């Protein structure tokens, strides 16, 4: 894993823990856990995450990209953000 993806992962984890799980316990959030299945994310939560990612990483999320493969776990989000950043 590159240092760049490490930074993305840390920021994404921090945001989810603080704003959606209201927790500081890192062990509560596995990088491959489904956020929908865990009940962490719902329809307004995903909009919050998108606004955060756009602001934080200077990316633009298209409506057609609002899919589980891009957002349903920390790993998916890290992969998605890295891909968009690479494409800039």
């Amino acid at each position, binding site marked *: 894993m590159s240092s760049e993806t490490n930074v993305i992962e840390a920021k994404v984890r921090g945001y989810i823990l*603080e704003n959606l*799980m*209201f*927790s500081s316990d890192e062990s509560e959030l596995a990088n491959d856990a489904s956020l*929908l*299945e865990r*009940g962490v*994310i*719902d*329809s*307004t*939560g*995903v*909009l919050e995450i998108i606004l955060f990612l756009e602001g934080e990483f200077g990316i633009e*999320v*298209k*409506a*057609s*990209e*609002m*899919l*589980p493969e891009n*957002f*349903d776990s920390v790993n998916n989000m890290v992969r998605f953000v890295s891909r968009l950043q690479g494409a800039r």
Partner: protein
Amino acid sequence: MNPHPARLLHESLLAAAAGPALSHKTAAVIDGESHSYCDLLDSALRLAASLRGHGLKRGDRVAIYMDNSWPCVVSIYAALLAGTVFLLVNPQTKSDKLGFILDDSGTKLLLTDGHLSKEFLPVLARVTGLAAVISSGSVPAGHNILSFGSVIDDTAPLAEPVATIPLDLAALIYTSGSTGNPKGVMQTHQSMMFAVGSLIEYLRLDHDDRILCILPLAFDYGLYQLLMTVDLGATLVLERSFTYPAQVFARMRKFEVTVFPGVPTIFAMLLSVHQREPLCFAGVTRVTNTAAALADASASRLRDIFPNALIYKMYGLTECKRVSYLEPELAESKPGSVGKAIPGTEVYLLSADGRPTPVGEIGTLHVRGPHVMLGYWNRPDLSEQMLHPGKLPGERVLCTQDQFRMDADGYLYFVGRSDDIIKTRGEKVSPVEVENAMLAIAGIREVAVVGVPDALLGQAIRAYVVLEPEMSLSSGQIRARCITQLENFMVPQQIVLCTDLPRTTTGKISKKALLEQMPPEDRT
């Protein structure tokens, strides 16, 4: 085919599965996978046989604590085919409340899914009277839990018919109440079949429709999408939620959805996605809204997304499923109205002293019709507040406790609620329930919960919190504790820490004074 029109909810399924025209038709598309009417009946009959095999009898309660999924749909019809009464528990529900509902309803059998085990396992030890637990997904080991897959296996027996009549209970539909604990609304086959028929009539639905459901089946608005679909012999496109809009849109296009039921929060999200990237669903011919008012401005912007759809504004409450609808053609001539009584029912307004309210004046809405509930399960006291004697001997009329105006043509205009229930994301939230959960948090001395206007949510939940002396809790810590007790939509978005709360002369916390202290833009 059945020799008579369906009188019981599951008779529609029996008729569809028996007829050559519908038997192999897709009843539901779930997670992109199609399931036929005959598959639905086959699985439901096997599960029904298992319910009977566990000793369940006519009228016993079966709780279904699952996401919108194929096992959930099968479970609903299995409970009906077994002659039992189903109750759907929102999968966001946490342990304590799940336990309350299982106890309150006297549930005999729990149908659930492995991914919810963190919440349901702790409950199993203390709930008495459960004959069995059946779980879809990965079955937790060591708790004597049966696997859903093995119960509906091809080799499992099919249930024999049960002597259900239309006056039997079909469902308990739990809804938030102002007292804090949820109440089970008792609905019979007769009242639900009536409501299904009335809704189908005014929504102008037929068997060619493909009805989307992104609302939880535990919410009666979601449940009726399924019941209407099966009654029509149509197709339901069932999604777990609206969390990943692009996935929902792809399914809508692939399966050519014609009916889009939503609540204002969903429409607000749809409009926000539309701003990023224009959306257009030309194949959708009906869009429906209920649970909270859809602003006329939003409705007109929705026309860009759904250029060929009739847009219905509706109003209802679980106690009678649906009260009123506005014919889409009248949207412009009756702005702000939620329309008139649904077909086969009537509504009228009464003043506080029980007299008919003159045209244009505010009164309490009363509803008369076969769709009115039988009452609240085990709560004759609360039933009596809502069900009043009607015109005919033995008849009961629903007093909604909601304030309305009616114009000279009989069209209704919502004025306000007479309780302090909060409507957020289309869900009813009892402030008392949230307050009770928060008062159980160590360090919180007092709390008052109110609804404040919010563009996306309808109302946001705001909690005013007084901490014990020397205690320090951040709003994040408070919300973290809330989420272990409350469904996500009940967790306050706003926490205001304060040193005291305003009181009435009798010493009760005054929410009126709290609301008056707020800046005007925050007031409801």
